[in-house]
């Protein structure tokens, strides 16, 4: 291993080894899972995330709205997968990988959302989250918590999980 990388890793280890308590005093910290959908980076609270799964095989369903991508089998459990782009009426531009599924759960409701790349966990101060800018159109404001300085769009997982439209659809099915 090169000396540069070694020093980098050392610096990182030192940074990680420091006490996070000092920051906590200033504001409330939430942990999010960051992922990329086409071009934008989104974040979702990790407490509602059950697991990240690689999409290997799925079954498309007939007679459902277009945002229901299909159903997958995760270790014997059948879960629906929602395409957020269609759900939020985002424009279809570029080709994403769409081979990752983030499985959300709040104890009652459980389903997967499609993602291109999963970056990992990230800690965000609540104060840093700003209101929804006017440029982000199409997405219902009720599904968003806000946007950080780093242009990370934080989704409201709680609202998503308790959404009536998804539930109604499931009942119809």
């Amino acid at each position, binding site marked *: 291993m090169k000396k540069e990388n070694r020093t980098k*890793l050392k610096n*990182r280890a030192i940074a*990680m080894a420091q006490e996070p308590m000092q920051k906590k005093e200033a504001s409330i910290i939430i*942990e999010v*899972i960051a992922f990329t959908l086409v071009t934008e980076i989104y974040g979702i609270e*990790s*407490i509602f*995330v*059950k*697991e*990240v*799964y*690689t999409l290997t095989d799925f079954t498309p369903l007939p007679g459902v709205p277009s945002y229901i991508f299909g159903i997958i089998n995760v270790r014997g459990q059948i879960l629906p997968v929602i395409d957020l782009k269609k759900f939020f009426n985002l424009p279809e531009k570029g080709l994403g990988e769409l081979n*990752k599924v983030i499985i959300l759960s709040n104890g009652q409701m459980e389903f997967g959302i499609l993602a291109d790349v*999963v970056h*990992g*966990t990230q800690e965000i101060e609540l104060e840093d989250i700003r209101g929804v800018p006017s440029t982000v159109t199409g997405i219902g404001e009720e599904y968003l918590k806000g946007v950080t300085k780093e242009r990370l769009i934080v989704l409201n997982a709680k609202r998503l999980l308790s959404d009536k439209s998804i539930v109604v659809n499931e009942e119809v099915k």
Partner: protein
Amino acid sequence: MLKNMKIGLRLALSFSSILVFMIVIIFVSLNQIKVSRTLFDQIIKTNNIRLQLANNMINHTREVSIALRNILLINESKKTLEFKNKIDSIRNQYDKDFKELEGLILNDDTMSFVIIAKIRVSEDASRQLNNKVVDLVMAGKHEEAILLMNQQASPSVAAWIKDIDELITHNENRTVMRITEVEKAQTAASLFMFILGTIAILLAIVISVLMTLSITRPLTLSLKAADLIASGDLTVDLTSAEKRGDELGLLLLSFSKMVRNLCGSVKDINEGVSMLGSSASEILAATTQIASGSAETAAAISETTTTVEEVRQVTQLSSQKAKNLSDSVNQSAQVSQNGQKAVDAIVDGMNRISEQMDIIAQTVVRLSEQSQSIGGIIASVTDMADQSNLLAVNAAIEAAKAGEQGKGFAVVAREIKNLAEQSKQSTSQVRNILNDVQKATSAAVLATEQGNKAVEAGVKQSVQAGEAIRILTESSNEAVQAAIQIVASSQQQVIGMDQIGVAMQNINQAGTETEVSMVQSEKAAKSLNELGQKLKDLVERFKV
């Protein structure tokens, strides 16, 4: 028409026409004389006799009257009978004359017949009265007879005589009429003869003038033409006279023919002379040119002679050069044979290079295939790195769920994630390198293919070069042969040049002779030209 007649015929015609006129005149005058004579004859033989007879009749009547008076006067019977007989004889005489007179009267004279009838009536009356008187006398009635005589017979006799007088007067009138007729006829005849004579004279004059003119005019024309021809002018135009049919016309015609023939021959002579002149001058020019040309030729021949000498020397030089050339060509033949061998070696070497290139190409292809399989391995490593990344994320999630106890695990999960990212980066680097390697191998494949092609071209070219060198060898062998031939022929050339030198000297001599003869012919041409000029002058005297 007159022009076409022969002169003799013309003369005969004119004289005969005049003759006809004269005959007519003579005939007419003779006839007239005859008519006059008949008329005069009539006057003399008929009219005069008639007059005489009438006078006789008057005389008889008077005699009868006298006899009757005598009877009356005498009054004697014997005498009376005598007188009576006398009266009867006189009366017979009278009747005879009367009858003769009647026979002489022409049928057309009706007036005479009327008068004669009148005479007869008065005659009958008078005779009866006279007879009565005589009867009275005989009867002795003398007184009564005288009375009858005086009262009736005498006036009757007077009337009778008066009637006969009337006949005489009538006859005289007729005579005068006849004479007037004769005069008239003679006047007409003389007028007619005068007119005819005048016409005849005029005709004679006209004919003589025309005859003279018709003869003299063409004669003058031919005279003039002859004068002109004598003076050498042949432009006389006699075509107008040629239409004549007489001897003069024929004369003019033959004149015209002569002039035409003369004209034609003069023209021919003229053309010939001018052609002679022009050809003589051309000959003169040509001979002059030839003379100058032969001088030039002589100069050229001498130049040529020197040139031939130079050429001969040059030929000797070239003979030597040809020998040298032959040697060097031999050398070059050897060199080209060596070149052939070298080229064969090159062809072999090129073939070996080609084989080596094939091997290289196969190796590169294998390399390419292996780099493909390396790509597959890299893909699976990337996949694994991805999965370990996911594992790290899941571990982090699990750690977050565990709360404070999971914090240490979260750190571990983050490290795993970093590791996975690093391995991902490394695989991407490896992938980049592999891409470079693949590009390089495909370039190598292309390069080896091009190299193969170049080697093939090299083989072809070396084969071609071998062929070229072989042809070169052949041609250098031919060149050797040619050089030998050149050497031989250049020696022959040297000999030939010597012969040419001798021939050139002969030509030189001949040229000098030609020059001399050309001067002579030039003189001849000059005299010919002068002759032509003289002839031309002679001919030009004729006007054509």
